[in-house]
């Protein structure tokens, strides 16, 4: 375990960078890193020395993140009424100017597109490594990457956002 700790330490700054970009919030990002490290400790027997430790850690972080997101979605799905349903449309109008920086634009990407874009553009993983880390086919990596970049470009250029929300009467 001590040895594992020594090997993991150099990866922590990059895990933090990715987590920050993924959650865009300092505390949430470090919570994600902490949960990832704890899970890695508990699953240590599944890691084989000599295999890519960094890729393994990012896979664990992906799984932890997905679980957190799922947990949040279940909670967020509860209050459904017209007032809340209208809110995102208004916000999209009001935030239009602020959205023009990439940081805010990132938040508008679906989680699965943001993950792919960040692993490739920020972490500089290969498409193959990204596919493996996220457990998806490489074709899916390419299509998510393509959609993520195009969507970011649209937001940055101030193109009107397509509202995917259906208002139920």
């Amino acid at each position, binding site marked *: 375990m001590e040895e594992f700790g020594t090997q993991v330490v150099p990866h922590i700054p990059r895990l933090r960078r990715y987590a920050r970009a993924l959650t865009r919030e300092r505390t949430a990002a470090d919570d994600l890193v902490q949960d990832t490290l704890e899970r890695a400790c508990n699953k240590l027997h599944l890691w084989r020395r000599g295999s890519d430790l960094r890729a393994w850690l990012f896979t664990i972080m992906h799984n932890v993140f997905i679980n957190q997101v799922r947990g949040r979605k279940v909670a967020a799905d509860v209050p459904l009424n017209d007032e809340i349903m209208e809110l995102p449309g208004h916000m999209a109008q009001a935030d239009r100017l602020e959205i023009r920086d990439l940081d805010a634009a990132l938040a508008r990407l679906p989680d699965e597109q943001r993950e792919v874009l960040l692993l490739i553009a920020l972490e500089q993983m*290969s498409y193959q490594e990204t596919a493996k880390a996220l457990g998806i086919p490489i074709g899916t990596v390419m299509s998510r990457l393509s959609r993520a970049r195009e969507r970011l470009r649209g937001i940055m250029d101030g193109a009107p956002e397509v509202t995917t929300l259906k208002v139920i009467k």
Partner: protein
Amino acid sequence: MSNLTITEADLHAYVDGALPQARRAEVETYLAARPQEAGRVQAYRRQNEELHRLFDPVLDEPVPERLRVPLAARRRFFPLRYAAVVAWITLGGVIGWQLSGMQHPPSTNSAAFARRAAIAHIVYSPEVRHPVEVGADQETHLVNWLSKRLGAQLKVPHLGELGYTLVGGRLLPGDTGPVAQFMYQDAKGLRLTLYVRTNAEDARETAFRFARENKIGVFYWLDGRLGYALSAEIAKDELLRVATAVYRQLNP
């Protein structure tokens, strides 16, 4: 130029610097004739740069204390380990009950020791995903950890010459305290386990003894402060050969 086939994937690989040089030149030729596509590629490149500008500073931040606490100190409750213990107790009870009528009764401590070793072998040797808690790739840690828990310096025999490689080991509950189990396997996946306990009362040496629990053969012996039991579902002669090698390595 116009007959170049450049895919969407090529454009992204170009942005990410993932293309071989020859292909990169083809993409550049392609883009030179298509300003709109070139603009799009340029925008993607700016996104990459902007992401680094925004988030690279995180790399230089001091890592918060809570992420630097020695990783070993933060082990929490493990559902898996808990499940293993429950399985251990349940299966041990079932197998013990089955064995009790069939074989020699555990009249002495050492016979009971052989039985516990056989049960531990039966429980853990078929495990595919979690045969051990700590793998052989961390042998030093494994030995230090188990030595610390048993309160005696353990050694792990290397049985490579006999065709058995170390898989790893785990900590188990014994009659009087913690017990260590080391697991080995051969090229065909046949597994051997070496079960090690400390001898609280009878610190002495004994000859090899043999017991058979169902199909599991067990050679067991006491060696000063430690008691050993080697279990496998193999012929007695072969098991004796391995047991002899183990004994020699532990007493060089």
